[in-house]
């Protein structure tokens, strides 16, 4: 990492210039020799080196050779290779996450970091063993080749690109600490943000005006994803943090903010018309039981990346990355056990909520899940379907990775399928069973046989135990799900 790159380069060009000045005949490209520890050697004209692979032009044509353990001899051998990468971020909050991840990645390698900032924020993060010799430089620039940090892309990436999930976040309606209101219906949130409520009286609060604060980068995506149209009279702020601060200090203030940027404002519970709902706390965001949960992805080329970029991608899967995600105010992807009574749901004991008339199911559910503990994973489905969508793939991958890590070796995991309340109960029971089985198959497909030390059982419970209100689309879509429970006979952890 600390080869004298710049100096060597300029020295080399000086030497080349001197050679050109002295030699009257045209100069051929220098021959380099790549030598392995066992003495094998290959020679040719140097073409390129990406930090991992050499390309050289030999008598038999151009060849690519893995550079590990090879020594390069010849004046054209590369010196210090600086690997460069470009990042783009969808908004200031996601950019903050990207920077936090880069800093933590550098720390994990024991590298020094030099950040270059302009008036708007970080423009370049350079890291390496010594500040004057960075080995890895990431610039923030919006160009087509950039690796892109983005919130829920909604559809699959274009050919040649891959979306790697990095973190969860959520949009939360937030108010000032002085506001007595603790929750709103999603409809109420939408209407209040659109300016349909002049004061908080109509929303269960005190006699003070509703003052909506927005941030410039947020309004567009919110309208697109949730059909939320901001009140024309709302105060527009340049950045999300300013909007959060304005909400926090305005007694009647209201904003819809990413949880990662909520600052000193207070989040509200979001419910449906039946009163069932969730607050944006990590377990409810990981399971998606909270309705405005979202996933942050890193979109990067699907082809093999240069070595340091690839080690960054690998590192994203590490505990160090999870810690950096949490420090940045986001929710990490780690699989956890939902603490009883602190799952973010409105109801203290979800099992007490088996609310349908299908008595036998409730009994079997109590028997199966009564002593089990829920994992913060849930897979959701489109209406009537048992095919998982993009968000569901993230959840399936989380579960598969946790199983592959050996964490649940010897345990029994119950994949508990549920449906919404539309249609006949018997049909829903079958549908929920099919969903659980589909997810079981999808998880097993991601595991190699040797990793199957965890028993996976698929159970359907129909429309029992809804997490949100049936009767509204968003509530029904949250209820169509497969939850994951760790059976009581598993190890106590």
């Amino acid at each position, binding site marked *: 990492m600390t080869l004298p790159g710049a100096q060597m380069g300029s020295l080399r060009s000086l030497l080349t210039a001197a050679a050109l000045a002295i030699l009257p005949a045209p100069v051929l490209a220098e021959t380099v020799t790549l030598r392995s520890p066992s003495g094998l050697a290959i020679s040719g004209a140097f073409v390129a080196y990406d930090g991992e692979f050499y390309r050289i032009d030999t008598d038999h044509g151009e060849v690519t050779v893995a550079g590990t353990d090879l020594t390069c001899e010849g004046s054209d051998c590369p010196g210090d290779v600086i690997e460069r990468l470009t990042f783009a971020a969808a908004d*200031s909050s996601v950019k*903050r996450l990207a920077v936090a991840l880069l*800093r933590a990645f550098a720390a994990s390698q024991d590298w*020094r*970091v*030099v*950040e*270059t*900032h*302009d*008036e*708007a*924020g*970080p*423009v370049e993060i350079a890291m390496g063993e010594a*500040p004057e010799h960075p080995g890895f430089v990431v610039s923030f620039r919006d160009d087509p080749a950039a690796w892109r940090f983005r919130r829920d892309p909604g559809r699959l990436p274009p050919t040649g690109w891959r979306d790697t999930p990095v973190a969860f976040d959520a949009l939360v309606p937030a108010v*000032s600490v002085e506001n007595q209101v603790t929750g709103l219906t999603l409809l109420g949130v939408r209407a209040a943000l659109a300016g349909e409520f002049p004061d908080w009286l109509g929303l269960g609060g005190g006699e003070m005006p509703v003052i909506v604060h927005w941030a410039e980068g947020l309004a567009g995506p919110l309208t697109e994803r949730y059909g939320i149209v901001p009140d024309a009279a709302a105060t527009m702020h340049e*950045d999300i*943090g300013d909007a*959060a*601060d*304005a*909400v*926090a*200090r305005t007694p009647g203030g209201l904003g819809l903010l990413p949880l990662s940027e909520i*600052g*000193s*404002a207070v989040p509200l519970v979001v419910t449906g018309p039946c009163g069932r709902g969730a607050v944006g706390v990590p377990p409810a965001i990981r399971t998606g039981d909270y309705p405005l949960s979202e996933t942050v992805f890193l979109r990067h080329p699907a082809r093999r990346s240069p070595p340091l970029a690839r080690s960054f991608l690998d590192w994203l899967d590490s505990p160090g990355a999870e*810690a950096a995600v949490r*420090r940045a*105010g986001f929710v990490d992807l780690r699989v956890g056990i939902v603490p009883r009574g602190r799952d973010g749901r409105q109801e203290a004991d979800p099992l007490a909520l088996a609310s349908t008339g299908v008595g036998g199911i409730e009994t079997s559910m109590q028997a199966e899940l009564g002593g089990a503990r829920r994992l913060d994973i849930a897979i959701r489905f489109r209406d009537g379907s048992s095919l998982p969508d993009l968000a569901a793939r993230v959840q399936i991958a989380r579960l598969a990775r946790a199983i592959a890590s050996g964490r649940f070796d010897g345990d029994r995991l119950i994949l508990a399928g549920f449906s919404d309340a539309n249609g006949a109960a018997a049909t829903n029971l079958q549908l929920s069973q099919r969903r659980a089985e589909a997810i079981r198959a999808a998880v097993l497909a991601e595991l190699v046989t040797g990793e199957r030390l965890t028993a996976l059982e698929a159970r359907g419970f129909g429309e029992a135990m809804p997490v949100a209100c049936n009767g509204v689309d968003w509530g029904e879509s949250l209820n169509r799900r497969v939850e994951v429970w760790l059976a009581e006979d598993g190890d106590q952890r």
Partner: protein
Amino acid sequence: MGRPEILTSAALAAAGLALALWLAANRPPPTPESPGAPEALATLSPLASLPERDLPQMEAGAAPPDLALGANGLPCGPSLQVAPERAGVLWVTVTAPCRAGEAVEIVHGPLRFTERLSVRGALRANVPRLTREAGITARIGETFLKADAAVDGETAHVSGLVWSPPLELSLVALEFGAGQGDRGHLTAGVDSGAGRVLRLGEPALGVVTDLYIGPRTEGPGVVRLHVRARRTEAACGGEQPLVAFRTGSSGLAVRDIRLRLGPCDGAPETILLKNLLEDLKIAGR
């Protein structure tokens, strides 16, 4: 001066002994200038931190005491004392009567600043403790002094910015959602919030550290830390180095930053950098 003037502990101990004899012979001892309890004062040990018990042994073979006195009759021998002032804050005293008016640079981890010694050759400053081992160095010209004060207890939430001209920076804190001009909108010297913003150092002399010291009793909430920068002709166009640091649950984090202040296009103006320092999350009581 060709070689750094390194003071040995022995010489200083001997000088201290000479001072005590001289004071006893002439007048009653003056009231100590430092409010710290004498036993809490850190041992003075220039460049090397020696255990206290080694001092008498060193004394035996010590060089003749330096009896040079400053304008006020106090011995020249520069000294540095560090004592815990209150939770998370150190009381730093530099005394160098023969170097009155000279610049002194204080360094504590990434925190560094340059100040001028008073007409009596003294500097007293409150410096937040950034690590448990509160090693502090003072430099007057080429004289280096070092002291340690290992203190228990938590360090405060501290976020700092270390810079020097041609940069012209200042720190702005907005506590718990405060807006411009509200209580909780803090700049150096404005004392109307839960925490405080303070400046250590004098830009004309060299390095400055601007600090925000967070509250212990308020929260939860977020303190936004913004940096006001003057785009002067000397600083625009290029990249200026600075250091940012903060204390936190995972220890002291230090960041090397290069700041681009945009092109030089006329009159100097002040810009607000909102993303240079990280916000401080205060968990509350």
